[in-house]
């Protein structure tokens, strides 16, 4: 009797579960007609990293003002959703792949565009934007990032990049110009109880992009090959890792750079314990007073450390993409049309501490004559480079960042075998 009753309840539960499962919408393959209905609503769905309701989010405030004006002037309704910056691209790819609701516009960085394109997540824009006057004024900062194989897949609105900020009085001869000079400067600064540099070096792809890849590239190495497969198991990359291990072991960089997050590594700079700080042109957003210190000459700016060749900095064009399956692509174009007008674009680029991607916006803003922006422009023009693309960009760099962090915390560990192991892991997981 007990067994019969248990079987009855188990069967009923299973039946209910199957009924619930049947109620789930069936996934639609991207590219099918069902995934791209004609625009039928006045609503534009936008994903970005900003919190429009946070008074401390200055970029969010600018975007909120733009959206309010757009709704009033164009008679549209904008539905904004905040998504964590490091999840924007992967969440977009998943939304498209699962055939669920996709937004009409997503903010993304240029480093994610090739992977999103490979995932079938991006709509081509050349045809939709061919009659837009503002598109004629776009600079190379947009075209290099967004036009791939002759087709446009994104619209970049500003260009930013990695920068090193250093206290001018502590480097009377300028910031070190090579690894040996960096070691010598470290010894000098250590005597005064200062770190040479502080930066984020945790187990996140951002650490590789901003801090390590420029050194690797300067040393003739690369992260990805032409197909996007790991190419970091090389002598050139191992040499950079060995040098970095020595610098951490020697106390030139703080431990918190490895164990903290972005904000934790900045504290070492704001507390006056580090002579330099590795961030980006976006850093004035997060480090109070940094812009004033640069403009007054108290803090100087430097690009990458020339490891054994030309210095490089990680460069990124931030912009908008229209996903495959967007319900209101015409609304997305209308959004872009207003966004890219010089008056607003200049304001947006200033809030981002980046260089706008149209000449008209550059002329309209506070970019000329400002020491900060002149430095940013010069550094990006001379040293800025886009990261090598990969269809498994985030996953691969996360695995590399984890391995790199382990190497830094275990300075006696030989880098090359560890790098090879990380490469094998990526190849085994994603390329077989």
């Amino acid at each position, binding site marked *: 009797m007990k067994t019969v009753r248990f079987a009855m309840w188990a069967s*009923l*539960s*299973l039946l*209910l*579960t199957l009924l*619930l*499962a049947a109620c789930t919408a069936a*996934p639609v*393959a*991207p590219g099918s007609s069902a995934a791209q209905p004609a625009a039928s609503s006045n609503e534009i769905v936008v994903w970005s990293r900003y919190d429009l309701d946070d008074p401390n989010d200055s970029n969010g405030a600018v975007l909120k003002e733009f959206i309010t004006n757009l709704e009033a002037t164009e008679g549209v309704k904008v539905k904004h959703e905040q998504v964590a910056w490091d*999840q924007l691209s*992967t*969440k977009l*790819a*998943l939304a*498209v*792949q699962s055939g669920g609701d996709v937004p009409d516009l997503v903010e993304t960085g240029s480093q994610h565009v090739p992977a999103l394109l*490979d*995932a*079938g*997540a991006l709509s081509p824009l050349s045809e939709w934007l061919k009659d837009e006057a503002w598109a004629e004024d776009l600079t190379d900062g947009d075209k290099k990032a967004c036009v791939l194989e002759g087709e446009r897949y994104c619209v970049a609105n500003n260009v930013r990049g990695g920068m090193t900020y250093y206290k001018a009085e502590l480097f009377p001869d300028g910031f070190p110009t090579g690894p040996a000079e960096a070691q010598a400067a470290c010894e000098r600064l250590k005597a005064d109880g200062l770190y040479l540099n502080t930066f984020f070096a*945790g*187990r996140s792809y951002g650490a590789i992009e901003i801090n390590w890849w420029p050194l690797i590239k300067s040393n003739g190495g690369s992260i990805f090959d032409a197909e996007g497969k790991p190419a970091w198991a090389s002598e050139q990359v191992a040499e950079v890792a060995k040098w970095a291990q020595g610098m951490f072991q020697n106390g030139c960089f*703080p*431990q*918190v750079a*490895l*164990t*903290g997050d972005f904000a*934790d590594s900045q*504290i*070492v700079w704001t507390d006056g*314990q580090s002579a330099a700080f590795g961030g980006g042109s976006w850093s004035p957003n997060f480090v109070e007073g940094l812009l004033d210190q640069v403009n007054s000459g108290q803090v100087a700016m430097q690009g990458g450390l020339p490891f054994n060749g030309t210095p490089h900095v990680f460069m990124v064009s931030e912009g908008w993409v229209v996903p495959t399956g967007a319900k209101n692509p015409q609304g997305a174009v209308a959004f872009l049309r207003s966004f890219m007008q010089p008056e607003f674009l200049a304001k947006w680029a200033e809030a981002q501490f980046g260089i706008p991607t149209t000449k008209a916006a550059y002329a309209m803003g506070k970019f000329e004559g400002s020491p900060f922006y002149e430095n940013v422009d010069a550094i990006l023009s001379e040293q800025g480079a886009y990261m090598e693309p990969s269809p498994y960009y*985030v*996953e691969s760099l*996360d695995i590399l960042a*984890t*391995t790199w*962090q*382990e190497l830094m*915390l*275990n300075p006696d560990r030989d880098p090359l075998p560890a790098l090879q192991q990380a490469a094998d*892991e990526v190849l*085994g*997981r994603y390329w077989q």
Partner: protein
Amino acid sequence: MRQKTIFPYLLILPALLIICLVSLYPALYSIFLSLNTFRRGERVFVGMRNFEQILASTNFWDSLRLTAVYGVLFVLLTMIFAFILAVMLNRRLNYTGLFMTMIFVPWILSEVVTGVIFRWLFLPGYGLLQDLLSPLFGDIAFLGHPQGAMGVVIGATIWRTLAFAMLLILAGLQTIPGEVYEAGAIDGANGWQSFWSITWPLVRPTTLVIVLLLTLQAINATGLFLSITNGGPGRATEVLSVSMYREAIVFFNFGYGAALAVLMLLINIVLAAIYIRTMRSEVVA
């Protein structure tokens, strides 16, 4: 008569629907997902390949080992401290209410808040406990040291969970009649003999329940790991649950992540089965 029989079942039907919706359906769907992978916008049935990849991966076995180490240390230390506190509070000392409040404050904090507190307490160069304790451990930076980072997470988990375990043990202790201790005292039992021969046997069933609950909590712990170490340094605190989170939520590799979840489910089932068997033999005894 038939309506009288059906009516109770109708009353519990809404609860059953909710259980199916939030527990059974996700579990069955996870099992389904674990047999698939998503590549270039398409779901591809791969059978047991995700499981083969996981079992062939050294990272999985490292995560399993870390989960076991974390689980054993967390459960053992929590039980020891909880027992000591429960025995002390059972003596109805002065200010028992105040002590109970102090012990319960960590329990009401969320995991993320607790994690951020502990991360700041052990931040290299800034953390209060980092500065106080590192001379005792060779001046290490706890969050940058593999065993140190795990120790910080274990400490945070114990700090947060102690109240729960202590309360259950205290409830068990308070069910023991005072006459049993009086009888023991008459027979000449000292403190340790009273504990070993009276307290421990009578509170053991309660202890087994707590051990099972804490073990299941340890296997599925994610929040404190993510907020204190995020699985680092390197992979030193990447336990199974963190690995599963990373695969499914960070990389959106749902098939692989679901396969990890299924393996964790199997581990939970085995442990629960061991507990049930142990409980049954306790009842028989």
